[in-house]
């Protein structure tokens, strides 16, 4: 029995660097591209437990695609992937500016995280369903959802498919496999599992993908989702986007000092992979692997995407108040667009000049769409959903008390 009676002390984790510190990640060991094995999708999960602690990477420092997870995409698919990411980044930039100009109330950008949602969507088949968070608009772009509709949603104007009822960026498109985004964190994760269970109950072949951030893994919904997914071997891919920051809270507050987010899957007997989220090729290859596993009725997979939220959480916070401005630059996994661009140049199918030209084209396209959207309206101007519309869709059929209230309101 111990005789140490010194008082207890509470451990409150702190990030390594705060404003004023010089971030230095040079001693963080990043596994070499190509160094992590690629198990068959039906391999015994016990044989690749260490994949939850490593990082699957394909693109090396020279821009080459190497190792067992490489070689899954052709030139055209890579060009398309680059274009999707560049489109998302340009769209974000325009919408950030529109918010600053007062054309909408709020916005959330993807800066630095574009590869994850853009690449993941290409691993799905028509009919599959994503249950996304607010930072996966690349799923929509890669699924071919019209930018105009996205922008109208952000502006809550008359072209907004959800009739001005949701905060900007909380998109919804069943047709594009994109579940209505909730503003409450984590709720979608267990819903994705239930949706996948329904596909299995019906004997269909559709799969679901749940999305959650590092911070929200602390929500009960995450635990429920992993329990249900593991119990019923649901055909679902359980994605965790670890972008290091939950508003101002670093990922260590949700994770504690132990293990990785991916490794949480192990406690439930769910195989888990950890992947370089800034590597379009690796992200796509891992997504494809997990999707195939789900579709072959082999059950769920947890995938942790290691990335970095290079911008603020939203237009409502200033990251320089809680982390060093230089941290984004110091982050060791680089920028997903620049890395794919370098790879395409290395392959000899892309040039600096073509990249500059593509950027200009994309910017023109987005400016054009923005004109079109603003011609319809913005949050405070132009054609917007009618006030009477707020009483619709509460129920399939409007009950008498809502009819009375709508009349009372004068609509």
């Amino acid at each position, binding site marked *: 029995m111990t005789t140490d009676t010194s008082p207890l002390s509470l451990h409150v984790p702190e990030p390594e660097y705060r404003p004023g510190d010089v971030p230095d990640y040079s001693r963080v060991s990043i596994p070499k591209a190509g160094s992590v094995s690629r198990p068959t999708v039906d391999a015994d999960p016990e044989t690749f437990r260490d994949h939850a602690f490593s990082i699957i990477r394909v693109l090396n420092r020279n821009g080459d695609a190497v190792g067992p997870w490489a070689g899954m995409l052709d030139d055209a698919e890579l060009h398309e992937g680059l274009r999707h990411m560049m489109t998302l980044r340009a769209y974000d930039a325009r919408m950030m500016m529109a918010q600053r100009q007062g054309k909408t109330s709020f916005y959330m950008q993807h800066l630095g995280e574009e590869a994850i949602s853009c690449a993941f969507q290409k691993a799905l088949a028509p009919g599959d369903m994503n249950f996304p968070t607010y930072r996966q608009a690349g799923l929509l772009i890669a699924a071919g959802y019209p930018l105009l509709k996205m922008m109208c949603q952000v502006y809550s104007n008359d072209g907004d498919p959800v009739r001005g009822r*949701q905060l900007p960026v909380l998109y919804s498109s069943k047709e594009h496999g994109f579940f209505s985004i*909730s503003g*409450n964190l984590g709720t979608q994760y*267990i819903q994705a599992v239930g949706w996948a*269970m*329904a*596909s299995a109950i019906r004997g269909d072949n559709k799969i679901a993908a749940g999305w959650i951030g590092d911070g929200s893994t602390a929500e009960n919904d995450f635990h*429920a989702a992993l*329990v249900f997914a593991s119990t019923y071997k649901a055909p679902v891919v359980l994605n965790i986007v670890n972008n290091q920051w939950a508003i101002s809270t670093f990922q260590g507050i949700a994770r504690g000092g132990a293990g990785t987010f991916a490794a949480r899957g192990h406690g439930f007997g769910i195989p888990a992979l950890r992947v370089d989220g800034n590597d379009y090729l690796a992200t796509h290859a891992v997504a494809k692997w997990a999707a195939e596993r789900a579709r072959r009725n082999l059950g769920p997979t947890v995938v942790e995407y290691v990335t970095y939220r290079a911008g603020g959480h939203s237009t409502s916070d200033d990251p320089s108040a809680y982390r060093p401005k230089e941290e984004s630059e110091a982050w060791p996994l680089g920028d997903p667009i620049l890395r794919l661009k370098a790879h395409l140049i290395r392959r000899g199918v892309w040039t600096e000049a073509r990249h500059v030209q593509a950027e200009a084209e994309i910017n023109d396209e987005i400016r054009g769409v923005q004109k079109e959207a603003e011609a319809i309206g913005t949050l405070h101007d132009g054609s917007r959903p009618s006030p009477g519309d707020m009483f619709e869709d509460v*129920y399939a059929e409007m009950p008498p008390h809502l009819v009375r209230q709508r009349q009372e309101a004068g609509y």
Partner: protein
Amino acid sequence: MQLTMIGAIQNALDVAMEMDPDIVVLGEDVGYFGGVFRCTAGLQEKYGKTRCFDTPISELGIVGAGIGMATYGLKPCVEIQFADYMYPAYDQIVSEAARLRYRSAGEFTCPMVIRMPTGGGIFGGQTHSQSPEALFTHVTGLKTVVPSNPIDSKGLLISALEDPDPVIFLEPKRLYNGPFDGHHDRPVTPWKKHALSEVPDGHYTVPIGEAAVRKTGDALTVLTYGTMVHVALAAADKTGIDAEIVDLRTLLPLDTETIFASVRKTGRCVIVHEATLTCGFGAELAALVQNECFLHLEAPIARVAGWDTPYPHAQEWAYFPGPDRVGRAFREALEDW
């Protein structure tokens, strides 16, 4: 056929599952065992393990997975073993099930039924006796139903399963095996002696949103639901007061037409529920009645409810608003005001 409330609920599920292959039943202990109250007995055997199955002990998970299933196109009927266990699922019910149609402008909908036994009278203590209906009626996007007898239980549950929106289906557990009227010191009366336990075979519905007048009367109107319907009937019998007893059956959407017609006729209104008084559903009823029937009222609207304490164990019958308290409220409502 003659059924208890448990039998009627089981039969409703059976009839609905037979007609609609998209209905799935899930919850704690509902599968092989058939539920702790036996409401899902035999369903797994008849319809297979993928249509009626046990879940992990996670109310959040049960409702959250149910929402996912509903958005896929199934019609989940989930059971929360006791309404008191509902709270971990509340975010999924309020922020998700109730709001999905609205926030997606009708693109995603959530046709699901969330069944849960409510109310006390079984010495369940504070975690097996609560009546949280007001926590649901306050949430727009939900419908809330509370049957008081076997025939309504079956008809309302089938309606709920056919409804395009999420329905909270509250089952007063003290009524499961008999029309308990609050006389806890008397032998239990079985359902088989009660006219409303003669349940039609096969498919029928009792519409959501329609109250039923259980007893017509001229002296005063009683607005009540669930177990308290029988308590109110007993109080009327005991006091000899010619009360009109309105069984609301659905709390939201509310059948205000029946309510207002009755109060305008009698001029007096007593509201009775087992749930705690403050901000209970009775407060909404009182506000509506005074607003719409003000000139017809000859006495203040009275409320009889559970005391604003947690539901106690040993003091259950001091807590429960039994026929004596209800009868006293009837007499007071008839005084000259």
